[in-house]
């Protein structure tokens, strides 16, 4: 197979054409008569000149380099892309949804509004929250929205002292960034030797400047915070609120609910929980749910129902305002709602069961070969440490590259930070036992390769289009667009 690294700009030959324009049927007019000099381009356009078949081959070849959950196993812990059933796409492509205009009058959008309304009811039931906004376009966007709601709540009560948000070391990576973005100060809470939040350290960190605790439960270590009830009580007693990062909600659907644990605000990463596209690749969705006392601060509009008619409610005087154009990514809501209804309550619970069983099965296979620092029953994901391999000469990053060579997407590496040389693995609910076995077998092979010739592993990958990229140069002086050699 052809594996060219050439850019399309480097492939053309002067004079080659992919298309011929028909002869002009109106009289030619010199450009100078139509445009003033200063608006005319004086240099060459610099477009590549290629034949049609060359262009088709180039882009078709590029398209085969995509790796996604539709082409292979993708255990990218915490950021995992769950398989998106194609029925979601069919529903979102229904002409009545796909060809709607966001400015269409309410009377002509009743079906779409009803879907948003029902989707919200489903999310409320799933999380034990009292109201949701569907506007945020992704998880991190939801986090910011949620913190802004918390901020509005404290300010509305005239409590202006609260300028800190507590975040455990095992938190989801976006949390500290969100806290800074919202203008708060980050206070880190350590974990104990079980990998769980240190309850005493949390209590010590709480005071009248605490705006909220942001918590991912289960955490990025894939561990369920068993002391969540006393934690919630302590935060509430200090006057703070509890923010639930729903990144890992896919592990607990139907078993427990953030609202029942004491959380006041929740965002859901619906790419993982409800099988929609990822916010990073998008368009995505990150609905935010709140408890009763925070409803007045939610973004406008909310979708409501009066006399059997659905409508947008803009009458929310203390709202933080809008966080997305129109009503969020409507098509994504259609996909998530479709998944919810196709699965049903029992099906969603089964998805969580399967996610947890798959993770524990794969963990039990891999811990025979690799070091598992927090060796307990996990939820949806687990974190290995490649520290022993690193000492032999090839660490987590090298193992990731070796996986690429063998056709697997690597797990998340070097995160969470509390595990050195972390390999964070999340298989998700839809993978078959055979896939997990194949992945574990390849991981064992890589461990063997490291024992035999770590140096070789440290210089991979060997079978990919490009090998080791210069990460330092990419971070420090990235070349973001092609420029013609002068």
């Amino acid at each position, binding site marked *: 197979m052809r594996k060219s690294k050439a850019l399309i700009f480097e492939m053309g030959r002067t004079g080659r054409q992919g298309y011929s324009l028909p002869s002009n049927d109106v009289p030619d007019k010199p450009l100078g008569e139509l445009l003033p000099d200063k608006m005319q381009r004086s240099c060459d356009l610099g477009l590549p000149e290629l034949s049609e078949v060359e262009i088709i081959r180039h882009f078709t070849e590029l398209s085969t380099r995509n790796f996604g959950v539709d082409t292979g196993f993708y255990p990218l812990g915490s950021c995992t892309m769950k398989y998106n059933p194609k029925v979601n796409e069919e529903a979102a492509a229904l002409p009545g949804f796909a060809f709607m205009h966001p400015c269409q009058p309410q009377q002509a959008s009743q079906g779409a509004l009803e879907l948003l309304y029902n989707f919200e009811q489903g999310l409320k039931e799933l999380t034990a929250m009292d109201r949701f906004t569907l506007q945020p376009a992704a998880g991190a966007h939801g986090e910011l929205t949620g913190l802004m709601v918390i901020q509005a709540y404290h300010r509305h009560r005239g409590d202006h002292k609260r300028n800190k948000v507590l975040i455990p070391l095992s938190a989801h990576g976006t949390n500290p960034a969100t806290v800074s973005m919202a203008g708060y100060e980050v206070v880190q809470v350590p974990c104990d030797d079980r990998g769980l939040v240190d309850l005493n350290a949390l209590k010590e960190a709480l005071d009248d400047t605490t705006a909220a605790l942001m918590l991912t439960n289960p955490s990025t270590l894939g561990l369920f915070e068993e002391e969540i009830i006393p934690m919630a009580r302590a935060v509430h007693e200090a006057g703070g609120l509890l923010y639930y990062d729903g990144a890992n909600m896919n592990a607990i659907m139907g078993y427990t609910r953030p609202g029942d644990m004491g959380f006041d605000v929740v965002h859901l990463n619906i790419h993982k929980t409800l099988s929609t596209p990822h916010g990073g690749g998008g368009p995505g969705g990150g609905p935010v749910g709140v408890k009763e006392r925070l409803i007045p601060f939610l973004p406008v509009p909310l979708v409501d129902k009066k006399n059997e008619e659905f409508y947008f409610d803009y009458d929310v005087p203390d709202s933080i305002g809008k966080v997305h154009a129109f009503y969020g990514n409507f098509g994504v809501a259609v996909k998530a709602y479709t998944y919810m209804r196709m699965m049903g309550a029992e099906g969603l619970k089964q998805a969580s069961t399967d996610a947890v069983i798959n993770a524990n099965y794969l963990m039990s296979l891999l811990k025979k070969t690799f070091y598992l620092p927090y060796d307990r029953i996990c939820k949806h994901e687990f974190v290995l440490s490649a520290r022993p391999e690193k000492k032999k000469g090839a660490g987590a*990053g090298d193992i990731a590259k070796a996986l690429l060579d063998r056709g697997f997407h690597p797990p998340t590496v070097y995160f969470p*930070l509390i595990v*050195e040389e972390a390999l964070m693995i999340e298989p998700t609910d839809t993978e078959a036992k055979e896939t997990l076995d194949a992945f574990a077998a390849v991981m064992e092979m890589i461990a063997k390769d490291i024992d035999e010739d770590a140096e070789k592993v440290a210089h991979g990958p060997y079978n990919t289009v490009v090998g080791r990229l210069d990460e*330092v140069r990419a*971070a420090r002086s990235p070349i973001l667009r092609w420029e013609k050699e002068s």
Partner: protein
Amino acid sequence: MKYNIIDGVKYTRKHEWARQEGSIAVVGLSDYAQDKLGEIVFVELPDVGTEVEAGKGSAVIESVKAVADLYAPVSGTVTEINEELLDQPEVINSDPYGDGWVYKVEIKDEGQMSDLMDKPAYEKFVVEEDEK
């Protein structure tokens, strides 16, 4: 020992070092820290005049693997920063105790310097860290 641990500087448990020069402490990252971080691509320095507090974040070091805080070994006022690092942060990797110094601070409390680890104590600490 795999890591270069030198005499004449004091070390923190977070792997920073501080070298006293009169009333000033020169601050940087230990060889162990730069090795664990990997190739450093970006450094965020405090402004001259900033008050730093022992044990609190005082500069940000970004590598291809992670973003890490540099915790101040001692409290005091920043008197000078190593602006070379803005263009060449990789100097921390190649010369952590020399040209890779990060900032200088006017020491507020001399006692804090003596609380830090000397070479033998830090060597022992690093061996323990590595074996954990």
